[in-house]
């Protein structure tokens, strides 16, 4: 039986990363649940075995059900009837399989009905699901929103909503409006507090993924007369109460199975989450960080399927009397695809491990005071997560678009036809560098970690690690890349102009990205020789890209900036 987890040994490599022991120890509070819940792990080995077995279920459902339904879902799509969404039949079957398999609310604590998985194995499931059908990953992955309820809602709300998510109810995050996309400070949906202290919502939301979900998180303006982010609060809208209808579903280029809805709120009853005015500045920021990691996983899954489809076709397709994979031009494309895929995955799980550690400490801090050392550690990992999340989302979404493009290129004319999966993958991939913050916005989030040295400090500490003798040359290249990065940062910040930094930001972030990803692959190769090819190919590729950016920056005069400014 095909299995998308067991046929992908890289996943197990990350599942057994040395940092996992600490992550699981923190998440499981020293395995305190073992006596309380019949499905809680007894120790680290037992926990890993459980993650492995559950991911095997995910892999099986993805291979046998979700990937098989992907094409039908892409054709059929969802539709609106009487103001509500009817999913494509394949989507319904996929959701049913995930519910029956108990794959909803995976990261939620057991007392609320979840599996209490760390973020890392949960993100692995997202990676696997995306390979099967990226559009479906959206619906399934919105279980992430439960995390926001868990972190910020009161106990009563947690008890009310999280078990429902774990039992399979779907979620959505209703943020975007016609005039508030990247700029969420402009959100206008109105929240009105009634005399009895309850709230109602009125207005319109647009581009809402899975907008007819069971439980919505809604960003709305609670402070009348306010105009910026400080007037926004977060609410829960429960579909059971009624008050929200779907006006239309967008006709999209890709991820067609995932309904993107325009919603009309008419006196929709809602519950306030956490404190007023904290909606955007605190809760949405947390929500978005989780969602960005999810899109990074989606991108990796799409890169995986792109590479596999291309590889298979290149082996089967014969021209000039031999399989096209034997031509250097084709095998270079394939090698680069695999290197970008592996590098994206290395960054994804490095990032998920950082998130795991700081989130576990945040959660422990609700039960007891953290020690000074713990606080320090939590802060360091929180900073790393903050730096690595936009890098992972930005780099891997761009790579998955490149891989989807190359996948079609390998297929030649056939790839342009609707006969192969690659054209759907190509359309599905396009959104990853746009939603949950465009690549340009990821650069905005990442650049301060370039200029303040978060990446460079991490890079320098990685360079101090031992590697195998045969990888010394690659390590030397990475060292050189890091020096070019440091020099470029100095050259750009030395101009003392925010505009100048903004202009070169993408170049600098990419230089950091190539160096970071190369070092992560070096670490993977030290643990597992299977990564060596990707390491060598990726660093070769990254070296050239870094040199290109370094060259652009060092040959750029500040007065040339005017050439780029549009009137």
């Amino acid at each position, binding site marked *: 039986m095909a299995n998308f987890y067991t046929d992908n040994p890289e996943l197990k490599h990350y599942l057994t990363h040395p940092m996992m022991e600490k992550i699981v120890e923190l998440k499981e509070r020293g395995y305190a649940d073992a006596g309380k819940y*019949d*499905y*809680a*792990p007894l120790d680290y080995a037992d926990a890993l*075995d*459980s993650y492995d*077995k*559950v991911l095997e*279920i995910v892999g*099986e*459902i993805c291979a046998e059900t979700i990937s098989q339904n992907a094409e039908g879902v892409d054709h059929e799509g969802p539709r609106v009837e009487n103001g509500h969404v009817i999913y494509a039949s394949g989507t319904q079957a996929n959701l049913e*399989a995930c519910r*029956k*398999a*108990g*794959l909803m609310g*995976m990261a939620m604590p057991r007392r609320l009905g979840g*599996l209490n998985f760390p973020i890392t194995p949960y993100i692995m499931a997202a990676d696997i699901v995306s390979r099967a059908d990226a559009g479906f990953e959206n619906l399934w992955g919105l279980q992430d929103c439960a995390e926001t309820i868990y972190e910020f809602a009161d106990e009563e709300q947690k008890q009310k909503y999280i078990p429902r998510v774990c039992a399979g109810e779907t979620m959505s995050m209703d943020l975007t409006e016609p005039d508030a996309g990247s700029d969420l400070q402009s959100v206008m949906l109105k929240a009105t507090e009634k005399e009895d202290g309850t709230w109602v919502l009125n207005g319109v939301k647009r581009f809402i993924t899975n907008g007819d979900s069971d439980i919505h998180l809604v960003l709305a303006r609670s402070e009348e007369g306010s105009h910026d982010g400080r007037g926004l609060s977060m609410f829960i809208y429960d579909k059971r109460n009624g008050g929200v209808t779907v006006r239309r579903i967008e006709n999209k280029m890709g991820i067609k199975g995932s309904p993107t809805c325009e919603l009309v709120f008419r006196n929709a009853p809602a519950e306030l989450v956490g404190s007023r005015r904290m909606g955007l500045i605190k809760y949405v920021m947390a929500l978005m960080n989780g969602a960005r990691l999810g899109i990074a996983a989606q991108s990796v899954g799409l890169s995986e399927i792109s590479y596999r489809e291309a590889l298979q076709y290149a082996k089967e397709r014969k021209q000039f009397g031999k399989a096209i994979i034997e031509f250097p031009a084709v095998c270079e494309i394939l090698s680069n695809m695999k290197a970008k895929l592996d590098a994206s995955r290395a960054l994804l799980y490095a990032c998920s491990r950082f998130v795991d550690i700081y989130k576990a400490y945040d959660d422990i801090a609700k039960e007891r005071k953290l020690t000074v050392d713990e606080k320090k550690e939590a802060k360091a990992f929180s900073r790393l997560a903050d730096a690595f999340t936009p890098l992972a989302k930005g780099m891997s979404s761009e790579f998955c678009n490149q891989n989807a493009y190359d996948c079609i290129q390998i297929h030649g004319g056939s790839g342009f036809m609707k006969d192969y999966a690659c054209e759907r993958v190509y359309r599905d991939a396009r959104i990853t560098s746009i939603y949950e913050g465009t690549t340009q916005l990821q650069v905005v989030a990442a650049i301060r970690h370039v200029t303040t040295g978060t990446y460079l400090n991490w890079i320098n500490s990685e360079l101090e690690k031992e590697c195998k003798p045969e990888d010394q040359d690659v390590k030397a290249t990475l060292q050189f890349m890091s020096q070019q990065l440091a020099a470029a940062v100095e050259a750009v910040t030395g101009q003392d102009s925010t505009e100048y930094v903004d202009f070169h930001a993408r170049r600098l972030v990419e230089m950091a990205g190539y160096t970071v990803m190369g070092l992560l692959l070096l670490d993977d190769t030290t643990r597992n020789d299977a990564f060596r090819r990707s390491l060598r190919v990726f660093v070769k590729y990254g070296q050239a890209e870094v040199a290109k950016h370094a060259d652009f920056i060092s040959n750029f005069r500040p007065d040339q900036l005017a050439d780029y400014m549009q009137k």
Partner: protein
Amino acid sequence: MSLNIIVMAKQVPDTRNVGKDAMKEDGTINRAALPAIFNPEDLNALEQALRLKDKYPGTKVTILTMGPARAAEIIREGMYRGADNGIVLSDRAFAGADTLATSYALATAVKKIGDFDLILGGRQAIDGDTAQVGPQVAEKLALPQVTYAEEIIDAENGHATVLRRIESGVETVKVPMPAVITVNGSAAPCRPRNARNVQKYKYAAVPSEAASDERRQKLMAEREWLNIGEWNAASVDADLNQCGLAGSPTKVKHIENVVFTAKDARRVENTDADIEVLMQELIANHTIG
């Protein structure tokens, strides 16, 4: 109202992926070369049982299998999907059983379980393809049987309503409980393993599997749900003359690779005279007898 359901299941070699070493020289199956799996139609039967459990809370689903101790693997598979427990009927005396001896052994185990409303099983196992065991168990227990079931619509007030697949379509029948129902491969596929159940039951075992694993034994002693029953011929009071090779009138004469060459079909009317003619013909050319 809740039900007690026994699902008869078999661990079989995966004959769907047969390689060239699938048969031994002597014509028997080379079990080592084929992965052991949950017989596919038994999974369809399990799904029907689990749907009844969803519908009638408190329903208990027990899987009964005959085989070596490692057949406990399919009971764990069943528990991952929602079965409550299982029993492995395991004894050297059962080895070499044909369908008659198998159904005898299963029937004795069912008698020992005693309290049940329904016995479900797949139509047939992919290693033998006889479709005889279910009906024979029903006969031995003097229970009514429904074969080729596609859906058990309900099971209440002493009767089960069953949709069965017949040659020209489907029919709905009503059967008094307790009854034996064999489920067709066209029925709903079995649900996936459940993440929570997998974590809960992964250490479940029959005593002999855990014999050299102290940690597992300790867990099994603390958690009764991890104990899968392991019964032998003595524990079900089986008459050894009716078990295994001794109780099996079927003798394998030789095995040959049959290639279908006939292209024409012949219609035999459902009359005693026509069937008699066909029987004589088959005996004459040694197809039977």
